[in-house]
C-alpha cells in the first residue's frame, strides 16, 4: 500500500468536511472542521470500510469510547493502533 494511514484518514476527513486534504491539519478538531455528529459517524463508517477494521465508537457517549476523536492526529493514532492490532 503506497498511501500511509495518515494520508488515507485525512482524505476521509477532508471529504467529509468538503475540504482539500491539504487544508486539514493534524491539530484540528472535528468541530474546527465543521463536522457534526452525523458527519462523525459517517467518517467512522468510511474508516471501517477503508481499513476493514471495527472502530469501538458509541455515539451515545463519544468521550467514553476507546476511540479518541479529540483531534485529527488522535484519530490517526487510534486508526494506526487498530490496524496494528488486526495485523498482530
Amino acid at each position: 500500500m503506497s498511501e500511509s494511514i495518515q494520508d488515507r484518514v485525512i482524505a476521509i476527513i477532508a471529504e467529509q468536511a468538503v475540504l482539500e486534504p491539504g487544508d486539514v491539519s493534524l491539530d484540528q478538531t472535528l468541530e474546527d472542521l465543521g463536522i457534526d455528529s452525523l458527519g462523525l459517524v459517517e467518517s467512522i463508517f468510511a474508516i471501517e470500510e477503508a481499513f476493514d477494521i471495527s472502530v469501538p465508537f458509541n455515539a451515545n457517549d463519544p468521550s467514553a469510547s476507546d476511540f479518541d476523536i479529540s483531534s485529527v492526529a488522535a484519530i490517526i493514532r487510534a486508526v494506526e493502533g487498530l490496524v496494528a492490532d488486526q495485523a498482530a
Partner: protein
Amino acid sequence: MKRIVITGQGTINALGRNVPETLEAMREGRCGISDLEFQDVERLSIRIGAQVKGYEPEETFNRQQIALYDRFTQFTLIAARQAISQSGLTFSGELAARSGVVLGTSGGGMNTLDENYRSVYEDGKNRVHPFVVPKLMNNAAASHVSMEWNLKGPSFTVATACASSNHAMGQAMQMIRTGMADVMVTGGSEAMLCFGGIKAWEGLRVMSKDACRPFSANRNGMVQGEGSAVFVFEEYEHAKARGAEILAEVVGFAMTSDAADIVMPSKQGASRAIAGAMRDARLNPEDVCYINAHGTGTAANDKTECAAVADAFGHHADELMISSTKSMHGHLIGGTGAVELLACIMALREGVIAPTIGYEEPDPECALDVVPNVARDVKVGAVLSNAFAFGGLNAVLALRAH
C-alpha cells in the same frame, strides 16, 4: 371555520419534472409508462412502470444530501421547492410557528431498504452506512421539508397505502380549517420502483404486464409509478391579505373505513366517503362536474368505484365526467392522490379534463363518462378526488374553482 386555498403546486413524476410539463402531458394524453430500468429487473415478471427516467440526483443535490436523502425524499424536496416558490411565502417568526408539513407515503425509503438488504443478505456485508435509518424512515421527507423551509408547526407523515396523500391533504386542510395552522405544505411521494418493491406487488397478482387501462373491459391490472406532488395550503384571509395567486379552494374532505376486507374494495365504504366529502363541502351532486377517479385498472377497483359513484350521485352519475390519470402517470401508491390533485386543479383553472388513456372496450360495469383517450375542454366549478386504499381506508377531497 376558516377557508383553505391552494397557493402553490409542484411535482416530479414520469410525465414531467414540473407542473407545466405534467399538465401538458395530461392534456395530450401522453403515457409515462415504459420498461423499468433497475438492478435485477430481469428476475421480475412485471417489467413496466411509470418511472422518472434520466433522473440524476447530482443535478439537484450535493454529495452529502444524496447520502442522506432517499429517492422519495429527493422527489419530495424537488416538488416542495416548486410549490413554495410559487406561493411566494418565506417562513420566519410567527408564520413559521404556525406552518407545518403533512405528507403521505406508503413505502418511505424503499430503495434504501432494498439496497441495504441486498448488501447484507446477498453480498454478505456486515456493515451498513450509518444513515440507513434516517434515510429510510417514512417521515424523512416531511422532516427534511420542515428543515429546509423552517416549518415549525404540526408536521408528520401519513401512511394509508394508496390513500396516504389524500389523507395527508385532508389533515392539512383540517388543521387550517380549525385554526391550528395558517399554512400547510402537503401532498405525498413514492419511490418503490426497485426489485424488492415490484417483487412484493407481483405476489398479489394484480399488476398488468402490458398497460394500465382503467374502466376498459379488457383491463388487466395496475401499473406502478413514482414521483411526488406537493402543494401549499393556505388560510384564505392570509392568502388574500398578501395578494397571493389562488389556484383553487379546498372545500371538503371525508374519510371512511370499510371495516371489511384487507384488499377487496367496498362500494358502501367508497360511496360514504364520496357523499361525505360533498356534504362537508356543502355541494349538491349536480354541482360536481368531474371526479379524478382512484381508477387503478384492476377488475375489482374500477367496477366497485363506478358502482359507488352511481350510488352517491344517483342520476347525476350519468352527467359527470370521471377519469383515471393513472393510465398516464401510473399508480404512485402513497403519492398518487397528490399527483392526481394536479389534474383536478387543471380542470378547475383551465377547463381541461385529463383523459383516461388506454381505453379500448366499454365495460357495462363501468358505464360512466370516463373521458376516454382524449382530453376535453369543459368549464367546471367543483371536482372530487377519490382515493381508496388497501385495508379499506377511503379518503375523498372536494375542490372548487376560485
